[in-house]
């Protein structure tokens, strides 16, 4: 399968995503610069973490105007799987491909550590077959506090579009399990159609034994399985 990894000038997890796809999964991955209009027929688009344009304003606010984002939107519109990780999630919300916004962590500081998330809600290319699982995945962000108005939140919950939720290791929800104050402990959501997923945790950071944890690999495997079924676009 072919993974296009979008590369903004301040992306810093783009190489990590490429690495995991190529060296861990053994599939094809390539970077696509923010300033071009050519996704080059991918099967999956990854919008990686980092600080797209420095992100001193709001995270992703400037990135959403990049030429490549119109292609990403078009790809998503055709039902292609798009996954935004961390800054990628922020960019997808700013670009309107996902609802809501990511605000500063309530503790007002950057947090880098392992966290547990429960996979739930409807099936998406990233989570298929993993519903009910609790995964340990690192987070590393300053703005991961998901917020949306009541109506949007109700709709997300009602439609099963909350696909990752921060939980304690035993899978239970608790205030301590939520690192950043996100509404309803939301760690990741999908769009109405289910093909665009955004999440704050970094599965690419825990996809090989050398890094002491392979929970993230399960999400990438799900993507591969979805691609094998869906065929290429």
């Amino acid at each position, binding site marked *: 399968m072919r993974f296009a990894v979008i590369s903004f000038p301040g992306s810093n997890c783009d190489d990590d995503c490429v690495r995991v796809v190529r060296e861990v999964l053994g599939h094809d991955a390539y970077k696509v610069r923010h300033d071009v209009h050519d996704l080059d027929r991918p099967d999956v688009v990854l919008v990686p973490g980092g600080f797209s344009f420095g992100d001193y*304003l*709001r995270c992703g*606010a*400037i990135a959403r*105007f990049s030429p490549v984002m119109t292609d990403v939107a078009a790809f998503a519109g055709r039902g292609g799987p798009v996954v935004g990780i961390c800054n990628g999630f922020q960019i997808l*919300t*700013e670009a309107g491909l996902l*609802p*809501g*916004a990511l*605000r*500063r962590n*309530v503790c*007002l500081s950057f947090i880098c550590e392992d966290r547990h998330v429960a996979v739930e809600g409807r099936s998406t290319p990233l989570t298929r077959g993993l519903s009910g699982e609790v995964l340990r995945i690192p987070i590393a962000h300053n703005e991961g*506090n998901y*917020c*949306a*108005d009541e109506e949007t939140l109700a709709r997300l919950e009602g439609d099963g579009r909350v696909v990752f939720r921060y939980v304690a290791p035993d899978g239970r929800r608790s205030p301590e399990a939520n690192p950043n*104050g996100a509404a309803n402990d939301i760690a990741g959501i999908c769009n109405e159609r289910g093909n665009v997923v955004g999440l704050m945790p970094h599965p690419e950071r825990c996809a090989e034994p050398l890094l002491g944890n392979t929970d993230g690999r399960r999400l990438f495997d799900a993507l591969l399985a979805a691609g094998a079924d869906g065929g290429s676009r």
Partner: protein
Amino acid sequence: MKGRITVQLKAGVLDVEGTAIARALGSLGFTASEVRVGRVFEVELGPEVANDPAGAALVLTDMARKLLANPVMERFEVEVLDGASGAA
């Protein structure tokens, strides 16, 4: 021409930073029952709106809508400052 755009959280959106500041002010002995934090952008506009305050206001509004404010949680105000006009 110069303009100012002030962006603030919508009423009802919890201002985490403001709350922390109110608490810190309290511990310094001040009374601040509420603090709301916002941002101001002072923009030196281009020659195309020189001596055209109405046009400048439109441009500023456009900048705020497109880039500087996030409509999900923020509101904004624009002001045209006469000041040192952007020449040309």
